[in-house]
């Protein structure tokens, strides 16, 4: 079973601050995804990364896939209250074509 470790588990910051959350594993993945889940809603896909070392930007969010395709990070610049939510990483790898989800990082951005 592929295990995805996300850190930190909880993060509370003030509006305007920068932050980075991490998703790590000992397994190699063919692709890795980041989802955001708001209270009372289902997860929504933010980005998919497939190439080792790949960097993708989505407005103030920067996603990076590790060179060895075992880890990923999400950096948010100048966080806003609308960024509040649960950030989940999910990965697919090897012969197992099902997604494995991490436990998530619960981010709270205070005004």
């Amino acid at each position: 079973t592929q295990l995805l470790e996300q850190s930190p588990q909880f993060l509370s910051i003030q509006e305007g601050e920068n932050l980075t959350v991490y998703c790590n594993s000992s397994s190699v993945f063919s692709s890795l995804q980041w989802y955001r889940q708001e209270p009372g809603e289902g997860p929504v896909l933010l980005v998919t990364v497939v190439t080792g070392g790949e960097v993708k930007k989505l407005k103030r969010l920067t996603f990076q896939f590790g060179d060895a395709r075992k880890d990923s990070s999400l950096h948010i610049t100048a966080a806003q209250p609308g960024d509040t939510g649960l950030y989940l990483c999910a990965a697919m790898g090897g012969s197992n074509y099902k997604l494995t989800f991490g436990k998530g990082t619960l981010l709270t951005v205070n005004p």
Partner: protein
Amino acid sequence: NAGVTQTPKFRILKIGQSMTLQCTQDMNHNYMYWYRQDPGMGLKLIYYSVGAGITDKGEVPNGYNVSRSTTEDFPLRLELAAPSQTSVYFCASSYRLGTGGKDTQYFGPGTRLTVL
């Protein structure tokens, strides 16, 4: 398009009761999934389907059953509800060619189930 819809939104069951959680998608996706989400535990895959008539177990299938008679519908059945099945249940769907590569899953809004 409505995307993925789930009913009911909330339900309280007594131990031993049964119920069916409904899931429908209107995106003509071939893959459908059922997950449960417990506090601080992420999403665990219960069952999935790669197309009508084909289903398979995920990580935590015990106590659940599914069927996939049409492309659109993927109901999840709880036969004898137990307190351990108290959770939030999410249905998702995706369109995939083959088994590798990307898999963009679209999630429904969830069903919050409490078993007392």
